[in-house]
């Protein structure tokens, strides 16, 4: 990047130039990179822990790891995808360290899948119209806390972070087909657990032919 630049001019630079500047030893370049993505990482991490201190620690750890591995970053891929992958691994590592990983050793979530019995499948479950957004969010969170990590991660990425399948596949280093399959199973597991925890929101779906005969 040559001579050290001022922060305002750096803010308009793209990621690859900031990475290059960081590698050349300019702390401001890295600071701008952190500023650019810190909010998104805070948003991601808070889906995994309710503690603000832990969120800050995990995000900080993610950036420090990214810095120490910056030389391995391939400029051909998106910086954020690369950073996100480090963040997900840091989160999982943190949870493992805390003994809080929802992955059960005896359970192979991929194999178990999210199969539902017919009764569960036929039940519709929607948030009550009187619920505040914060209440819905809290219910959703409590259900997701119970899901195996492999399912929670795809749900967070897709449903809460609004990531495209391709980006999820890039972060998790799996195929798009695997993302689709995991999402399908994750949603099935989510619905099943939601029905178990909050049966009050369940409504049995009416038969389509009944609906047609009524109308």
């Amino acid at each position: 990047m040559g001579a050290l630049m001022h922060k305002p001019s750096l803010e308009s630079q793209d990621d690859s130039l900031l990475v290059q500047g960081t590698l050349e030893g300019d702390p401001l370049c890295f600071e701008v990179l952190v500023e650019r993505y810190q909010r998104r990482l805070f948003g991601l991490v808070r889906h995994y822990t309710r503690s603000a201190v832990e969120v800050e620690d995990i995000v900080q750890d993610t950036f420090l790891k990214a810095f120490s591995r910056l030389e391995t970053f391939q400029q051909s891929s998106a910086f954020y995808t690369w950073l996100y992958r480090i963040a997900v691994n840091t989160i999982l590592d943190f949870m493992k360290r805390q003994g809080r990983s929802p992955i059960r050793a005896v359970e192979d979530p991929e194999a178990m899948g999210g199969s539902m019995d017919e009764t569960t499948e036929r039940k519709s479950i929607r948030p009550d119209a009187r619920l505040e957004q914060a209440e819905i969010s809290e219910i959703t969170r409590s259900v997701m806390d119970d899901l195996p990590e492999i399912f929670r991660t795809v749900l967070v990425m897709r449903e809460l972070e609004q990531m495209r399948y391709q980006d999820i596949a890039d972060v998790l280093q799996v195929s798009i087909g695997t993302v689709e399959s995991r999402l399908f199973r994750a949603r099935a597991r989510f619905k099943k657990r939601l029905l178990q925890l909050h049966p009050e929101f369940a409504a049995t779906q009416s038969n389509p032919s009944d609906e047609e005969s009524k109308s």
Partner: protein
Amino acid sequence: MSITSPIQCDVVLALVPTFVDDEVTDSVASTVRRHLMDCSACRNAVQEEQTLRQWFVAAPEVEVPTGFAAHVARRAFAGDVGLEPAPAPVAAAPEPPAGRVLAFSRALVAVAAGGLVAISLFLAGSGGPEVADLDAGKGLQEALLELEQENQRLELEDSASTPEEGR
């Protein structure tokens, strides 16, 4: 499902999640939409898929602490590499066979010792068996009586045959 529908319900149902996620190509999306116009069962499946997504609401914005980026950059350039990865969980090592044999022997000895103590306490509590109470004891008593009688007889014979000292 309408007879004129160009694709089958099972194909559409399989596509529902990706269709709702807007992850199908434009041509697939338009084919699915045409099918949905004629098929209430598949429309219901789409509605159900959309209903489930209502649980995922946007969470409030996150507050990032002031000066966070500068603080992280300082730490990074100071050589802080963050926490080391968590060590892999160590599986409990299986006990070697010799250890298991030893443990079994110890358990066996403990059980045997306990049994002996219990028998001793029982016998002490009941005062212990009399020799006369036992069949084997009766035989022994008779033998002792015989031995005593034999000794007395021998002593008598002995005293009869021996001259008096001092005579």
